[in-house]
């Protein structure tokens, strides 16, 4: 689910950017916020960081005595993407393996659908391997699948989420 969340971050601006003229300082703070937002990529609580929509408030700066950098508390709204257990979403198959398929959905790449969670589908090996059920419905590369999230895991080192998903439920499966 895409979320609009308000956050407060501390943005650090180096002394040479501290130009009092007009909006130069404000610009330096916002540019730094956007850089930090993009490079941080995601966190456990809010999911993936997609876009800063509005900067609500920039608080008073505090000088760090060791470096002369100035730290500004900035409140802003941004869009994030987080998957919840029990949520139903659509994703696109990007890899087919013997024991299941990998899907991507929004910014998330590591979404695993195990063959155990699609019991009526059988693996059909070949150069372009796929899964198929007895109604000839196919799950192969680039197919859109509607699934339910059964678990998510935050991996701190990679700053990524993994998710396990299932087709067990009504109205789930490949969509033509």
């Amino acid at each position, binding site marked *: *689910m*895409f*979320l*609009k*969340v308000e956050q407060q971050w501390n943005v650090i601006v180096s002394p040479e950017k501290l130009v009092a003229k007009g909006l130069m300082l404000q610009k330096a703070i916002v540019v730094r916020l956007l850089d930090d937002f*993009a*490079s941080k*990529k*995601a966190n456990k*609580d809010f999911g*993936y*960081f*997609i*876009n800063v*929509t509005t900067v609500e408030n920039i608080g008073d700066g505090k000088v760090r005595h060791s470096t002369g950098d100035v730290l500004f508390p900035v409140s802003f709204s941004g*869009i994030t*993407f*987080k998957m*919840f*257990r*029990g*949520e*139903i*979403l*659509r994703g*696109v198959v990007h890899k087919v393996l013997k024991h299941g398929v990998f899907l*991507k*959905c*929004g*910014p998330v*790449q590591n979404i695993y659908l195990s063959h155990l969670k699609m019991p009526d589908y059988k693996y059909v090996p070949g150069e372009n391997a796929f899964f198929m059920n007895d109604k000839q419905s196919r799950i192969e590369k680039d197919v859109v699948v*509607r699934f*339910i*999230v059964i678990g998510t895991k935050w991996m701190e080192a990679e700053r990524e989420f993994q998710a396990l998903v299932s087709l067990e*439920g*009504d*109205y789930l499966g490949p969509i033509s």
Partner: protein
Amino acid sequence: MSGEEEENASELKIGEEFLKAKCLMNCEVALILEHKYEQLQQTSEDPMNQVSQVFEKSLQYVKRFSRYKNPDAVRQVREILSRYQLAEFELCVLGNLCPETVEEAIAMVPSIKTKGRAHDDDAIERMLNDLSLIKKFE
């Protein structure tokens, strides 16, 4: 977050902070990200280089999975769904997945049928009809 084992979106257990947070439908996110991308195109020759991978993948995804493209239609979808006492999360799941039948809508958002809530099948049917009208006139 309060007890991760407890999380279950089908029962609308997604944590206090997210129940209150504003959720966005894919089509709303598409409008916002496309606008941002157009702004970048005007100031930069290679706008794709200016955005993060997360932004790029999300933009591709919402463009592909938005049922409504026209800004007026997007606004109407939220307005219509807002009349039906839905949680933000439920509203967006319905707006994203566009179920065609009452049975499908309940399968996508089981929490709308939990005890004590005012959604009988007729109300859900009316809601789906209202939504299908937007799609037709877009």
